[in-house]
């Protein structure tokens, strides 16, 4: 009775129910493998992401400042000129070394997968996901740079993940450490198949590997090419632990990813020209399925009448 009489309480109850219903529908509909952003989300993510990029750059600058200048504050005044020269030279050397390292990294990245028929897009990591439940990284390339949803992402070390969410200028990568990312993997030595799933911040697990497969520690895991996302032969990681129970038909294999996610700075997106074509084919198949379902429903209702 209090609820009906009190206007505020009634309003609050109605709003709570509406918001909960919308959220429950949202949870049910949310895809764990793909997220297509709306135009509004697109604009807002594109507005916030440059600030994330600036903060990342600022941190690098500050760190460089502390490394290069503060350590030298206590030097004597008589050596100021000399020190300045040395400092300048050191800065130049540091900068050259950094450039050389970057050059090597980028060269490796660009040389990687030369045989794979994909357009390679170089991108920088600008942020990580705001929730520790997800191992997702944000990069500074988007739709306008030719990135497509579900494009595989790699480094010279191996597989990083695939494009999960995309805006005009930025993209989110669902890494192989995330448990929503499932990669059809192949143990290179024995050609045994399994599904590689993210587990925590350092490890992935390979499921459904037959117990009879003679896997050993250190075996290399590569992508099998099945699943329509990753090309075949990309290095996923190495076997770091094997669990065989006394029962069951499979064994649990722990994988240490080939990519060091703690030091990830640049990645390469492999964007296939045929991605759009592939998407249209999937949509056409979905539409055919829906049309068949609708037809069978109409037939069933006709019969029941």
């Amino acid at each position: 009775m209090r609820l009906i009489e009190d206007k505020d309480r009634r309003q609050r109850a109605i709003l709570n129910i509406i918001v909960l219903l919308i959220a429950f529908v949202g949870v049910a509909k949310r895809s764990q493998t793909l997220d297509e952003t709306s135009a509004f989300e697109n604009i807002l993510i594109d507005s916030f992401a440059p600030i994330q990029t600036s903060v990342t750059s600022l941190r690098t600058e500050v760190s460089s400042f502390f490394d290069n200048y503060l350590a030298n504050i206590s030097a004597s005044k008589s050596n100021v000129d000399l020190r300045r020269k040395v400092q300048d030279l050191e800065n130049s050397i540091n900068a050259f070394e950094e450039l050389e390292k970057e050059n090597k990294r980028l060269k490796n990245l660009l040389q990687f997968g030369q045989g794979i028929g994909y357009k390679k897009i170089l991108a920088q990591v600008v942020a990580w996901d705001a929730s520790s439940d997800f191992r997702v990284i944000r990069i500074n390339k988007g739709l306008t740079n030719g990135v497509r949803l579900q494009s595989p992402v790699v480094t010279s070390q191996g597989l990083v993940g695939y494009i999960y969410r995309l805006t005009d200028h930025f993209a989110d990568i669902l890494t192989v450490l995330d448990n929503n990312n499932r990669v059809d993997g192949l143990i290179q030595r024995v050609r045994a198949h399994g599904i590689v799933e993210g587990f925590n911040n350092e490890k992935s697990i390979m499921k459904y590997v037959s117990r009879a497969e003679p896997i050993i520690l250190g075996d290399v895991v590569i992508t099998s090419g099945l699943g329509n996302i990753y090309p075949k032969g990309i290095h996923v990681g190495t076997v770091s632990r094997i669990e065989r129970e006394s029962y069951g038909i499979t064994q649990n294999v722990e994988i240490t990813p080939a990519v060091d996610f703690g030091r990830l700075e640049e990645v390469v997106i492999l964007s296939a020209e045929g991605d759009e074509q592939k998407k249209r084919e999937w949509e056409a198949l979905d539409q055919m399925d829906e049309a068949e379902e609708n037809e069978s429903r109409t037939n069933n209702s006709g019969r029941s009448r």
Partner: protein
Amino acid sequence: MKGDWLKLIRPLGITLLILVVLEIFSTALVPMLGLMKYRIPFNVLIILYLGFKMETPYTSLLILILQYTHSFFSIEGWEMGTIAGVIICIVISYLKDLLHLSSSVITIFVTQVFQSLWFVIVSILLYLKEENFSYIVEKFWRFLPESIVISLLAPFFFGILDVIWRAETDRALGDSV
């Protein structure tokens, strides 16, 4: 501020701005400093504040807007956090006569208790969707340090949010505004 939607717009705008700044700090700076495993869920902290202090019937809408903003920085989406937030606000509304955020220690304790409830609700939803218990166990070990940091930050943050939302700091939660 009880039922006046217009009076909520300004503090909501400022709160959203604070959330955006904190999310940028959490996503761009913290991981680059080497803290890859943990993130500080500032959205949870703000939503708990709304639950504790707001008397407006629009609390659920405010939670929805905050979670939607959070979703720009996480693929987590807005849905699960909204469900957890609204349920927690309903629970708090029934317990308001018992809860008094009169000291920092109590604020820290109460925030920790309701964060645990948040964890339980989100875990149930995740289990229903994923059917993966080991993931929830792994999430629990991350939840512990993250929630402790949030609880310790709560008295300071609630003070700032009190100024923004012009809530009375010393009142018991059950008192009318």
